[in-house]
């Protein structure tokens, strides 16, 4: 990756304000570390809160959809809408409604991850082994207890795969939110640097974002492996 990057610069002789060399970007990351950290903290806060809320909302929605056909009929359109509407189109409206602060970005992240979390958990809940449910019925379990003691634990690995996707998508939501209107965050910093033709800073912000996303995914992955996945 780095080699390719440097090679492109050498072979095309592209100007450094179009594509800065890796060494310069590394230097910028080091020199602007305080600035980058300040904005990274904001972005990560948006992402993490969005992730937690989106996961919780997806968890509850999927259970509701399995438990009640009415809820299924109500939630399905929302679910499809949350995935099909371009988030770029929503961002200005959310900024208008929720302001320039954290909440518009958290909501963006939440909307973007709602679909993967809900639908993968829902699918897993619907795939519960029929014989397990039969056994539970014979044991005298109510539908609510079957849900809680059989279907939910059986479907947790499916919930985990939704969370893994969400960990990758959530930063996209937050960054788009920051582009549309913000005074803090890595997305805002990228726009600012772009406006001032500080390409190196823009790349620095981009790379910090990429590293954070990878770390987030790795962390979520580890947590899922420890708590939700099942060896079989």
């Amino acid at each position, binding site marked *: 990756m780095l080699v390719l990057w440097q090679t492109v610069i050498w072979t095309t002789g592209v100007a450094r304000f179009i594509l800065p060399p890796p060494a310069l970007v590394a230097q910028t990351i080091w020199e602007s570390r305080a600035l980058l950290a300040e904005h990274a903290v904001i972005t990560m806060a948006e992402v993490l809160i969005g992730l937690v809320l989106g996961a919780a909302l997806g968890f509850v929605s999927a259970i509701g959809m399995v438990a009640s056909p009415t809820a299924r009929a109500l939630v399905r359109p929302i679910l499809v809408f949350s995935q099909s509407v371009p988030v770029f189109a929503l961002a200005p409206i959310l900024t208008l409604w929720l302001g320039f602060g954290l909440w518009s970005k958290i909501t963006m992240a939440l909307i973007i991850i709602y679909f993967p979390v809900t639908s993968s958990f829902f699918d897993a809940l619907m795939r519960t082994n029929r014989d397990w449910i*039969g056994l*539970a019925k014979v044991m005298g379990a109510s539908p609510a207890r079957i849900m809680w003691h059989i279907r939910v634990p059986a479907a947790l690995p499916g919930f985990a795969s939704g969370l893994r996707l969400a960990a990758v998508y959530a930063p996209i939501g937050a960054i788009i939110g920051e582009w549309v209107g913000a005074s803090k965050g890595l997305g805002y910093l990228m726009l600012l640097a772009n406006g001032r033709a500080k390409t190196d800073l823009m790349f620095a912000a981009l790379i910090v974002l990429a590293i954070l996303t990878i770390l987030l995914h790795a962390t979520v992955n580890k947590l899922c492996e420890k708590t939700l996945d099942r060896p079989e």
Partner: protein
Amino acid sequence: MNQPLRISGSAAIDGVPIFSDLDLTLKPQSWTCLLGASGVGKSTVLRLFAGLAEGVRFDGDLSDPGRVAMMAQQDLLMPWLSVLDNVLLGARLRGARPDHDFARDRLAQVGLADHADKQPSALSGGQRQRVALARTLMEDCAVVLLDEPFSALDALTRAQMQELTAELLHLRTVLLVTHDHNEAARLGETILIMTPTGLVEIAAPTSPIPRDIHAADVLRAQANLFDRLRRPT
């Protein structure tokens, strides 16, 4: 449960008849073995008794066995629960207080006292089926429905499980569905073959169960059963 359990009538799934004019009575506190060709409807009878026959249209009389315990070919252990918690599953599902001591006693009865805290994935197939047996005992029901519970086990383990189960479910009303003639001859106090035209009763040995694999009366009953299954009348 001292009333005989009876099912008499016809069943169909999606308009396709499964059996008709069946009349099966389970003697209380006794083991009934049900054999018959694949697809003849043995598991359907069992599911009707268990109240699990969604999608089955049944016309006739079916006595209500109350709460029953069930054990099938698959052990149906929950992979996310420990062995002990699997044995306690019924109590949890009914919202009752789980009786850990009672559960550990059941595990000891099936010879798994030392495995209580393991995950099911750490057990062999035979051990898993013993956990399923402990879970069935834990239910402590008068009526127990067994659907080919030992058919996935190797011959030696199967023989041990037959003996263990017969001892531990002594004096319960048991319906055992099986394809194994020897098993039926060892464990059946009543032996029935289910055919599309009704039940055929085969004389069962009169000695107490579990009978010795090689006992003369077991071998005789087994041969008799084999002939009857080969020449359906």
